C-alpha cells in the first residue's frame, strides 16, 4: 500500500512538475498564433523526454550515481566541461525566467509589479532549498502544479469548435498571415520547452536523493511513462484553450495574464484563481528544480559533496552554487528584461544546447560497465538515435530562425 502511494505520488508530481514557464509561454503563444498546428510537436517532445528520462532513471537506479557524474567519468573532463557550460548557462537563464514567472503569477494575484516580487521570491527560494527536505519540496509544488488541470476543464467549458481544432492539428502549417519561418521557430521553441536540459539532470539527481536502486526501476518508469505524458496533456490544454480563445480573434499572446484568460472565460473567478495558483506552483517548482540542477551539475563535475540528503554544512560548495545561481537569475531579471522575452530566448538557447545534454546520456546508457544487462535495448537506441538527429537539427536551425523571424515576430 505504501509503495502504491509512493508511485501515485510520483506520477502526480511528474504531471505537475512537467510544466514550467517555458511550456506555459510557448504553448500559449503557439496556440494563439497557430491554433493546434503545433500539436504534433508536443507529441514529439513528450516522447523524446520520456525516452531520455527513462534512460536517466535506469542509469541512476542501476549505478546509484547521477548521470552527470558518469558523463564526466565516461567521456572525460573536456567533453563534460562543454556539457557543463551549456547546461549551466541555459539552466541559470531558465532559473531567471522561472523567477520572473513566479513574480508575474504573484502580480496577477496582487497587482504588485513583478519586479518587486523577484527579490522576495529569490530569498524564499533560497531558504526553501536550504532548509526544506527534498521530498517535501518536490511533492508540495508538484501537487500544487496540478491546479493547471483547470485548463483541461476550461477547454470543455469553452465549447470549442472541435472540427476546426482537429483540422488545424491534422493540417500542420502556418495559417493566413503567418509564414513557415515563424512556424518552425515556434516548433523549435516548443520542442525545447519539452526537453529542457535541467529536467533530465534533476530527474537523475533526484533519483539519487531518493536513494533509488534497481528495485525502483518500475517506479521510475511509471513516473516517466504516465507522469510526463499527462504533464504533456496539461501543456496541450494550455495550447488548446489559447487556440480556442485567441486564435479566432487573430490575437497573439505575449503575457501571462493572457494565458490565464481562457480559465477565467471558461470557469470564472475560481478557474482564474486555480490558474494563477497553477502558474505559481509550476514556476516556483521549476525554479527550485533549476536552482538545484545548477548545483547538481557543477558539484558533480568537480566531484564535490552534493545533494539535499546531506546536511548543508557537508555540501557547502553545492549550496553556494545554488545560491549564486539564484542571485544571477534574479540579477538578470532586475535588468528589467521582460520575463516572457527572457523565456523565449532561453528556449532557443536551450535548443542549441540540447545535443550537449542528450548525446552523452545516450553514450552512458549504452555502457555495460555501468549498467550491465540493463543497457539500452534496440527500441531505446532507435528512439535515442532518432531524437539525437532531431535535437541536432533543432540546435542548428534555432539561432538562424531566431534572427530571420526576429524572435518569432515574423
Amino acid at each position, binding site marked *: 500500500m505504501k509503495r502504491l502511494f509512493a508511485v501515485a505520488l510520483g506520477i502526480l508530481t511528474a504531471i505537475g512538475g512537467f510544466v514550467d514557464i517555458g511550456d506555459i509561454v510557448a504553448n500559449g503563444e503557439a496556440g494563439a498564433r497557430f491554433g493546434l498546428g503545433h500539436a504534433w510537436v508536443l507529441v514529439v517532445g513528450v516522447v523524446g523526454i520520456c525516452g531520455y528520462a527513462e534512460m536517466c532513471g535506469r542509469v541512476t537506479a542501476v549505478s546509484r550515481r547521477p548521470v552527470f557524474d558518469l558523463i564526466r567519468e565516461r567521456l572525460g573532463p573536456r567533453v563534460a566541461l562543454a556539457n557543463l557550460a551549456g547546461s549551466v548557462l541555459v539552466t541559470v537563464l531558465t532559473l531567471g525566467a522561472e523567477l520572473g514567472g513566479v513574480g508575474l503569477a504573484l502580480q496577477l494575484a496582487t497587482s504588485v509589479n513583478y519586479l518587486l516580487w523577484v527579490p522576495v521570491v529569490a530569498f524564499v527560494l533560497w531558504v526553501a532549498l536550504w532548509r526544506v527536505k527534498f521530498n517535501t519540496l518536490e511533492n508540495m509544488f508538484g501537487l500544487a502544479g496540478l491546479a493547471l488541470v483547470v485548463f483541461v476543464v476550461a477547454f470543455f467549458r469553452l465549447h470549442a469548435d472541435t472540427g476546426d481544432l482537429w483540422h488545424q492539428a491534422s493540417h500542420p502549417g502556418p495559417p493566413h498571415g503567418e509564414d513557415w519561418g515563424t512556424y518552425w521557430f515556434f516548433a523549435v521553441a516548443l520542442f525545447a520547452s519539452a526537453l529542457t536540459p535541467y529536467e533530465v539532470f534533476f530527474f537523475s539527481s533526484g533519483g539519487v536523493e531518493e536513494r533509488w536502486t534497481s528495485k525502483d526501476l518500475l517506479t521510475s518508469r511509471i513516473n516517466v511513462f504516465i507522469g510526463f505524458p499527462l504533464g504533456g496533456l496539461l501543456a496541450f490544454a494550455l495550447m488548446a484553450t489559447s487556440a480556442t480563445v485567441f486564435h479566432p480573434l487573430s490575437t497573439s499572446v505575449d503575457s501571462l*495574464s493572457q494565458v490565464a484568460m481562457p480559465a477565467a*472565460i471558461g470557469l470564472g473567478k475560481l478557474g482564474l484563481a486555480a490558474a494563477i495558483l497553477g502558474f505559481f506552483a509550476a514556476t516556483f517548482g521549476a525554479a527550485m528544480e533549476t536552482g538545484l540542477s545548477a548545483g547538481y551539475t557543477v558539484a558533480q563535475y568537480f566531484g564535490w559533496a552534493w545533494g539535499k540528503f546531506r546536511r548543508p554544512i557537508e555540501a557547502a560548495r553545492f549550496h553556494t552554487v545554488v545560491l549564486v545561481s539564484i542571485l544571477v537569475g534574479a540579477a538578470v531579471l532586475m535588468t528589467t528584461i521582460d520575463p516572457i522575452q527572457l523565456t523565449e530566448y532561453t528556449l532557443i538557447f536551450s535548443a542549441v544546447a540540447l545535443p550537449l545534454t542528450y548525446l552523452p546520456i545516450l553514450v552512458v546508457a549504452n555502457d555495460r560497465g555501468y549498467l550491465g544487462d540493463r543497457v539500452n535495448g534496440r527500441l531505446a537506441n532507435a528512439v535515442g538515435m532518432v531524437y539525437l538527429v532531431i535535437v541536432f537539427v533543432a540546435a542548428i536551425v534555432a539561432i538562424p530562425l531566431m534572427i530571420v523571424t526576429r524572435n518569432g515576430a515574423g
Partner: protein
Amino acid sequence: MALAAVVLLLGGFAYTQSRPPTPSDYHRTLVQVAESAHDAVRTGWLTGREQLSGRVFGTFVMAAFDDAGTAIAGAGKKFAAAVPPDGRSARLRDRLNPLLQEAVRDLGDAARADNDDVLRAAVDALGRLADRLDTFIEDLR
C-alpha cells in the same frame, strides 16, 4: 578563419542596422506595430468584457490592463522611431497614427472605468477599434 567569420557577421549586422529603411522595411514595421496594437486592444476588450460579466477579480484586471498598456506603449515607441522613406509610406503612417492614439485612449478609459456604464462604453469602443485595426492589417498584407 573564425575571426573572419565573426567580423563578417558583425559587419553584416552593422550594415542591416545602419542602412536607411526601404519602403518594404517600413511596411513590415507598420504591420508589426498594427498587430501589437490590435493584440493589446483585443486583450483589453476581452478583459473588460469578462470584468462586466464578473468572471475576473480586480488584481487580475489591473495586471491585464497594465500588460495591454505596456504592449501599446511598446508599439507606439516602435512606430515613433520609424521614419517613412517615401510618400506612400507616409500615407500609411497617417492612417495608423490615429488608430494608435485611440488605442491608448480607449485602453486608459477601460482601465480606470469606475462603473459598468463607463466600462461598457469603453469595451464597445475597444471592440470597434480592434476591428478597424484588423482591416488595416489586412489592407497592408
